[in-house]
């Protein structure tokens, strides 16, 4: 792998498109922490985040010939990972949350309300804030969670988020705002009881 050490993504992608295993290995190594982190946060503790991350990279390699480098490799990778996570979530809770575009935000609002109502008596005083925060993120409706995770955990800007999720900037800002509001509301329990 040393021959590609320090190479930029474009160089590595082009080498990978020619079947260079070492180059693709460096790309995987470079983005594995981010993709595993994102899938873990999107899918929660029982979500097989590692498997989905692995599927993401394998799917990326198999579609690499069609990748034109018109967007960043990382953006393209995030998009694949998000879609993989959506597949898992869709299979997990098909009747609760609609992940399709359209009325997703209304569905998310209703879904969150259901979760919030069901968990007013968490044993908040016995857990760490970080654990509660992670739990709160896991409980966010998927459309809010993906926006919040990409913005606050992965540190993406709204333009890149728009490219990853295929949603316009204003909608994404609204979703991130909603996610922040919902999380602050859930964490208020922690603050009050501790």
């Amino acid at each position: 792998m040393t021959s590609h050490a320090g190479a930029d993504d474009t160089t590595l992608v082009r080498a990978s498109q020619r079947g260079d295993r070492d180059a693709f290995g460096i790309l995987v190594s470079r983005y594995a922490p981010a993709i595993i982190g994102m899938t873990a946060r999107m899918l929660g503790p029982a979500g097989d985040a590692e498997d989905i991350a692995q599927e993401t990279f394998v799917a990326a390699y198999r579609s690499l010939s069609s990748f034109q480098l018109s967007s960043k490799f990382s953006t393209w990778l995030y998009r694949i990972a998000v879609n993989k996570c959506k597949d898992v979530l869709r299979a997990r809770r098909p009747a609760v949350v609609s992940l399709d575009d359209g009325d997703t935000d209304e569905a998310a609002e209703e879904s969150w309300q259901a979760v919030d109502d069901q968990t007013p008596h968490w044993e908040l005083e016995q857990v760490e804030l970080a654990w509660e925060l992670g739990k709160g993120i896991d409980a966010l409706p998927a459309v809010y969670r993906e926006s919040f995770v990409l913005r606050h955990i992965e540190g993406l800007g709204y333009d890149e988020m728009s490219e990853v999720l295929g949603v316009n900037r204003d909608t994404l800002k609204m979703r991130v705002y909603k996610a922040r509001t919902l999380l602050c509301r859930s964490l208020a329990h922690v603050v009050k009881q501790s």
Partner: protein
Amino acid sequence: MTDTERLVQRFIDQELSPEERMRFVARLGRDAALRQQVIDFEQLALDVSRLPRPGVPDGFVERVVAEAVPAPPAWRGVVNALLRPRTFHWNLASAGAVACLVLIGLAGLLTRPAVAPDATTATAATSTTAATAPRTVLVRLVVVRPGAATVAVAGDFNGWNPARTPLEPGSNGAWVVTIPLEPGRYEYMFVVNGQEWIADPFAAERTADGFGSENAVLDVRPDAGAV
């Protein structure tokens, strides 16, 4: 989103112009509820940034690459190594060394004595030398191995490949071959039935082969007719 919500969002995302920011901060001083909301949002962003990230499991990269990228056949690695473009790095010292080697080679060619007279002499001195190879000496090798199915010889002269030089069965269990050799010293062994490697029991000289056994040594002199 309301205008206030949008303003909060832009403040948190640091998208406000300096003037807008000043006006918003002044408003925070007057509006305790709004101030608390902004503090909560900022605290949230800070808490989220401190969340532990899951590590990459051992062997993850290798597993992904193994599943995604089929391993190339072994021969392709050899071909790639042969065809891979290489960059030659040189400096004055290496260039000088190469130049010296070339000059020495040229000098050797220019000062080399003519070959033809010697060849004629060798041919004359060796009655059995083949006419097409003036300096070649015909050497007959003989070994007695009654009952053997095959006997061959392997040595310096045939790349240690017994398949190149089989012996012919003679009378009384003797196996014989005659081979043309240029003058020089050669190590060799007989190979009986394709498996048993033995040194020539009639060899005048033997030498250790480095593997705990001995090779026979054949010293072919230019003036010898046959050994």
